[in-house]
C-alpha cells in the first residue's frame, strides 16, 4: 500500500485541475461567493482600524477635547460588531464548503466505485482507494474551503492598505511598497521548501510506524532467528533519519519568520525616519508634512501587511502540494467503467440503481463459453478460444494450480469481467444483452474468505434480500446447519458480528455466508472454497451446507477439499487456461493423469490431518 502513496511533487501548479474541481463543487459556489465578500469586508475593517487610532490621536489628544468621544466609541463598536458578524459568517460558510465538498466528493466517489468493474479493483489496493476518499478528500475540502478565506482577505487587505497609504502620503507609500516583491519571492521560495521538508518528515514517520509494526508483529520470529540486534540497528537508522528530517523542517520554519520580519522592518524603519522628518516639518510649517496620527497609521500598516504576503505565498505552495491529492480524486471521479450495459439493455432492464425487475426474464442456468479469449489489462493472456458447455443444474469443480485460470473462468461467468473475444451465453443468450444487475441478482456467491458486514447475523443473512421475512431467514440458517451456533449466542439472530464478522470464527462466518446465498435462491452458484483450517466438526457442517446449497443449481466451485470435488458432477482440471481433464471423480482416477496425482497428494495430507484432529 505504501508504494501507492508516493506522490509526484515535481509538477507545476495546474490551474485547470483546480478549475475542474471547482466545477465539481458547484453546489457551493454561492457559499464561496459569500466567503469572498465577507473576507473583503473583513480586510476593509482591518485596514480601517488603525485609522480610528489615528483619529483618536489627531483629534482628541492633539486638540485636547473629549467632544465626540461617545460617537467615536459607537463607531468603534460598530466596526467591532461588523467584524464579529463577518468572523461568524465566514467560519460558518467556509465550514459549510469544507464539510460539504468532502461529503460531495465522497458521495460521488463511492457511487463511482460501485459502478467500476472488477478489473479496477485488481489494480487498486483497498488501502489506496480508502485514502482517496478519506485523506485526499479531506485535504481538498480544506483547501477549497479555507485557502480562499486567507487568499481573499490577504489580497483585499494588501490592496486597501496600499491605496490608503498612497492616499495619505504617496511618496512614502511608494518606497514602502518596494519591499513587497522581494518579500513575496522569498516567501514563495521558503514555503515550498518548508512544505517539502514536512513531506519528508511524513514519509519518515510512516517508516517509523512500519518499523514498529514489524518489530511487534515479527517479534516472535525475530526471537527465533536471534535478529534483535540487527533489527534495533535498522530501526535506529530510521529513527535517526526521522530526527534529522524533523529538525531540518523545524529549522527551516524557524528561519523563515525572522527573515521575513527583518525584511519587513526595513520598511518600518524607513517610515520612522522619513515619516518622523515629515512630522517635524509639519510642526514648523503646518501642511508641509504629516500628523503624528498618520505616522502611526503608516507604522501600523508596514508592520501588518507582511502577513498577507506570507499567507498568499503559503496558499500557492499548498495548492501545489495538494495537487497530487486533487489529481487522484479527479481521476477516480473521471474513471469510466468498462463493463457497461448498452442503452438498449438499460432501457429494457434498468440500471444498477433503478432496476426494472418486471421486465427481467427468469434464469434457468445453462451456461456456454463460446470461443472465449480473455486477457487482463496488463496484457497477460489467460484464456484463448476456450469452449465449455454446462447444463442447467450441473455442479462443476474447477481444479488446478494458482494462476491456471480457474478464477478467471468464474469471474467471466459472473460477468465481473467480460471476454475480450467470443461470447458467454446464459440460457442461450449472450449475457451482454441482459443487464448486469439481472445476472447479479441471480447469482449466489460464497467466498474463500467469507466477507460479512458489520451488523447482526440476521442482517447479514438478509444481505441479498433485505425484505426477506424472518421465517425464511431462519429456514436458510437451519438448512445450512448454522442455527445451533446462532441460537447459542446471547442475542441469537440479533447478535452483532463485529467489523468484517470479526466476532465469529471462520467456520461460523462460512455458514452464515452459505445461508446468505441460499436466501436469494440463485440459479447460478459460485463457491470459491476456503482452504483455511477449521475443526473436523465444523468441516462436516460446511460440507453438508455445500451439498444443500448446490442442489438444483448450476454451480461452479473453485475446489480445494476432496469431499467437495468428489461429489461434483463434473471435474475440470485447468492448466494454463486450458481444460486438460474433464470427467467424474472415478473416471479421472482411473485415468491416472494430472487429477490422480493431485488427488493422491492431497488425500494423504487431508487424511493425515483428520487422524490428528486438525483441519
Amino acid at each position, binding site marked *: 500500500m505504501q508504494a501507492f502513496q508516493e506522490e509526484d511533487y515535481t509538477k507545476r501548479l495546474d490551474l485547470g485541475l483546480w478549475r475542474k474541481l471547482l466545477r465539481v463543487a458547484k453546489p457551493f459556489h454561492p457559499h464561496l461567493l459569500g466567503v469572498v465578500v465577507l473576507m473583503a469586508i473583513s480586510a476593509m475593517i482591518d485596514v480601517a482600524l488603525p485609522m480610528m487610532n489615528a483619529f483618536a490621536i489627531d483629534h482628541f489628544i492633539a486638540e485636547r477635547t473629549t467632544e465626540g468621544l461617545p460617537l467615536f466609541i459607537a463607531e468603534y463598536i460598530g466596526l467591532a460588531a461588523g467584524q464579529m458578524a463577518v468572523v461568524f459568517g465566514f467560519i460558518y460558510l467556509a465550514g459549510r464548503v469544507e464539510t460539504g465538498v468532502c461529503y460531495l466528493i465522497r458521495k460521488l466517489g463511492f457511487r463511482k466505485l460501485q459502478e467500476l468493474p472488477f478489473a479496477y479493483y485488481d489494480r487498486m489496493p483497498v488501502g489506496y482507494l480508502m485514502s482517496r476518499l478519506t485523506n485526499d478528500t479531506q485535504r481538498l475540502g480544506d483547501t477549497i474551503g479555507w485557502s480562499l478565506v486567507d487568499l481573499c482577505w490577504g489580497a483585499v487587505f494588501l490592496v486597501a492598505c496600499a491605496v490608503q497609504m498612497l492616499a495619505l502620503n504617496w511618496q512614502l507609500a511608494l518606497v514602502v511598497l518596494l519591499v513587497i516583491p522581494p518579500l513575496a519571492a522569498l516567501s514563495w521560495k521558503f514555503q515550498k521548501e518548508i512544505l517539502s521538508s514536512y513531506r519528508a518528515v511524513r514519509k519518515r514517520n510512516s517508516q517509523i510506524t512500519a518499523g514498529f509494526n514489524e518489530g511487534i508483529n515479527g517479534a516472535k520470529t525475530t*526471537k527465533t532467528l536471534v535478529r534483535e540486534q540487527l533489527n534495533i540497528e535498522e530501526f535506529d537508522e530510521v529513527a535517526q533519519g526521522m530526527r534529522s528530517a524533523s529538525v531540518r523542517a523545524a529549522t527551516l520554519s524557524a528561519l523563515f519568520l525572522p527573515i521575513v520580519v527583518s525584511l519587513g522592518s526595513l520598511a518600518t524603519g524607513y517610515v520612522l525616519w522619513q515619516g518622523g522628518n515629515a512630522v517635524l516639518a509639519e510642526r514648523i510649517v503646518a501642511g508641509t508634512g504629516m500628523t503624528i496620527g498618520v505616522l502611526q497609521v503608516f507604522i501600523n500598516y508596514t508592520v501588518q501587511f507582511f502577513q498577507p504576503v506570507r499567507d498568499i505565498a503559503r496558499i500557492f505552495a499548498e495548492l501545489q502540494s495538494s495537487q497530487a491529492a486533487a489529481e487522484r480524486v479527479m481521476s477516480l471521479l473521471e474513471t469510466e467503467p468498462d463493463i457497461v450495459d448498452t442503452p438498449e439493455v438499460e432501457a429494457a432492464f434498468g440500471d444498477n440503481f433503478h432496476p426494472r425487475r418486471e421486465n427481467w426474464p427468469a434464469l434457468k442456468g445453462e451456461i456456454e463459453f463460446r470461443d472465449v479469449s480473455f486477457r487482463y489489462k496488463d496484457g497477460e493472456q489467460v484464456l484463448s478460444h476456450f469452449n465449455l458447455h454446462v447444463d442447467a443444474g450441473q455442479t462443476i469443480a474447477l481444479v488446478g494450480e494458482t494462476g491456471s485460470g480457474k478464477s478467471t473462468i468464474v469471474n467471466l461467468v459472473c460477468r465481473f469481467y467480460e471476454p475480450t473475444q467470443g461470447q458467454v451465453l446464459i440460457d442461450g443468450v449472450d449475457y451482454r444483452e441482459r443487464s448486469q444487475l439481472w445476472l447479479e441478482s441471480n447469482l449466489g456467491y460464497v467466498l474463500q474468505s467469507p466477507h460479512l458486514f458489520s451488523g447482526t447475523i440476521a442482517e447479514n443473512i438478509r444481505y441479498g434480500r433485505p425484505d426477506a421475512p424472518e421465517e425464511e431467514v431462519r429456514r436458510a440458517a437451519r438448512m445450512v446447519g448454522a442455527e445451533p451456533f446462532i441460537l447459542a449466542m446471547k442475542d441469537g439472530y440479533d447478535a452483532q458480528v463485529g467489523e468484517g464478522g470479526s466476532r465469529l470464527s471462520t467456520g461460523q462466518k462460512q455458514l452464515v455466508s452459505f445461508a446468505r446465498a441460499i436466501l436469494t435462491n440463485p440459479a447460478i452458484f459460485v463457491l470459491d472454497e476456503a482452504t483455511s483450517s477449521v475443526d473436523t466438526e465444523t468441516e462436516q457442517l460446511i460440507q453438508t451446507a455445500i451439498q444443500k446449497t448446490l442442489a438444483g443449481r448450476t454451480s461452479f466451485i473453485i475446489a480445494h477439499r476432496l469431499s467437495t470435488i468428489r461429489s461434483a458432477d463434473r471435474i475440470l482440471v485447468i492448466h494454463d487456461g486450458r481444460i486438460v481433464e474433464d470427467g467424474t471423480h472415478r473416471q479421472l482416477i482411473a485415468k491416472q493423469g494430472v487429477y490422480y496425482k493431485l488427488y493422491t497428494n492431497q488425500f494423504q495430507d487431508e487424511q493425515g490431518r483428520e487422524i490428528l484432529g486438525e483441519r
Partner: protein
Amino acid sequence: MPSPQNKPTPLQAMLALIRRNAGPFAGAMISTVMIVLIGYLTPLLLAETIDCVLTGKPSALPGWALAPLRALGWSRAYLADRLWILGLLLVGLNVVNGVFTYLKGRLTAVASENIALELRERLYAHLQALPFSYHVHAQTGDLIQRCTSDVDTIRRFLSVQVMEVVNALLMIVIALVILLGRNARLTLYSVVCVPLLFAFALWYFGKVRKSFREADESEGVMSAVLQENLSGVRVVRAFGQQEREVEKFETVNDDYRRKCFRVNRLLSIYWGVGDIITWAQSLLTLAVCVVFAVRGEITVGTMTLFVAYVGQLLFPVRQLGRVLSDTGKSLIAMERIQEILHAPAEPEEPEAQRPALDGDIVFDHVSFAYPDDGVPVLRDVSFTIPAGSTVALLGGTGSGKSTLVYLLQRLYEPTGGRITVGGVDLREIDRSWLRSHVGLILQEPFLYSKTIRENVGIVRRDPEAKAVEHAAEIAAASGFIAKADKGWETVVGERGVTLSGGQKQRVAIARTLLKDNRILIFDDSLSAVDTETDAQIRAALRHEQEGVTTLIISHRVTTLSQADKIIVLEDGRVTQEGTHAQLSAQPGLYQRINRIQTALEEELADARSAETAAAQDKEVRA
C-alpha cells in the same frame, strides 16, 4: 531494568526526559525571554520617538536607561536631526529578535526531537528484549499506537505547548511590570478582560472535547463502512446490492458531515466570543487612554505603548487556555509508554555457557504448563535425540508438540524436569547462543517487509549473494523467485507481494539455512508444500546439513517413515517411540496414519474396476 516498585510517576519520567536535554531547553527558554523583552522594546522605541523626539515631551524612561543615551550624545535635538538612527535601531531590534526567534525554534525542535528519538529507540529496543510470552499475548494495534501517537503527543507537548505556556506567562508578567511603572490605574483598565479571556478559553476547550471526539468517532464509522464495502466488493456485486450500499454510505457520510460541521460551528463560537472579548479590551484601553491623555495624565507615547502591549498580549492568553486544557493528555501518553518500558524483559545471564551443542538432546522428565492457565501441556516427557540423527515427531492438535519446540529454543522454560544438550542443561546455556545455533522453522512463518533477497539473508549482517542463492536452491525456492515480478528484488511481507503458504515456508527454510545450525527443527514447516517438493527439499537438506541433529514435526507418512526414529506425542505424553518398521507393526496413531497409503491404493483399484465395467457395459450395448 527497574522493578515495578520504583517505577517513576509519569511526571517524574517527563522531567527526567527534559533534564537529559537541559541544554537546548534552557537555550530555548532564554531565547523566549529575549523575544518577549525585545517584543516589548519595539513599541517602547516608537513611543519614545513620538513623545520625546517628535513632540518634545520629557522622556518617560527611568534615569538609568537614559544615562547611556546621554553618554552617546544622543540628545533630543541630535536625534531629531538624525531620525535614521532610530529607524536603524528599529531594524536592529527586529534582526536581534529574529535571531532569538530562530534559536528558540531550532533549540526547541532539537530538544523535543531528541526526546522523541530516545523514546522511540527505547521502546523499540525494549520490545525486542521482551520475552516470547509477552508477544504471544500482546495487542499489536494498541502497542503500535502507544509507540507512535503517544510518543507524538509527548513530542508536541514539549515542543509547542510548553513553550507557548512559558511565552504567555512571560508576556503577561513583563507587560504588567512595564505598564504598572507607567500608570497603575490605566494598567488595571487595560487588563481587566484578560482573566476573562483566559477562563473562557480554558472552559471552552474542556467543553468541546466531546464534540471533537464525536466527530472522530463518526469518521471512524464512515471509514469502516467504506473499508467493508471495498473489501467486500465481490459480495456487493454478487448480490446486486450497490443501491443499498450507496444508501448505507450516504447515511454515515452525512452523519460525519454534520458532526464536522458542528465542530466547525463550535469553533466559530470560540473565535467569535474570543474576538468580542479582545475587541472590548482594546476599545476599553483606547477609550480610557484618550480620556487620560486629554486630561494630560499620560502622553501620546504612553497611549501608543498601552494600545500596542494590550494588542500583543491578548492572543497568547487565548492560546494559553487552549494549551492548558490539553496538558493532561501528555501525562496519560507518558503513562501508557511507561507501561511498555517497565514490562520485564528476558533477564540477562552473564554466567551462561556457550557449549558446542553437538551432543545428544535429552528430554529428562520434562513437564510444562503455561503460566496463564496452569493446564499441563507436557507431562513427564522423556526421550533422546541422538546427535546427528533425524527424529520425527507425530502428534495431533493439543499434543504439546509446538510447546516442545519452543522449549528447545528457551522461548519458554520447562516447569519440571530438564532438557540437556551434550549433557548441559539448557537453562545454563546463553539464550542468544542457543537460538543462534538451533534453527527453528515455524509452520506459518512471518516474512519481513523487505525484498526476497533481504529476507533470505535476514540473519546475517552482510550476506553473500552466493550463500543466499544457494540456500534458496536447497529450499526449492529459486524457481518461484525467478518467476516473481522483480525476481530476487520483489518486496514481500505486509507491504509487498503476498506469497502463498508454501512459498513462505520455503523462504523461511532458506533463511534458516544461513544460520550456523547445530540443531534444526521443522515445526510442520513443509505442510503447504506438495509432497514431491517436500521430498526434494528434505533430500537436499540431508546432504547439506550433514551431521546436524534434526527434529521434524509432520503428518506425512513419507516424511515420518524416513526418520531414524519416530516419537508419537499424545495429550502431552510420549505414547510410542521406534522406527517405521517397529511402529507400523504396533497398533496406534502411527499405524493409522500409515494406512492412508493403503486406502488410496484400494480406491484406485475400485475406480479402475468401475470404469472397466462401465466401458464393457458401453461395448455390450453398442
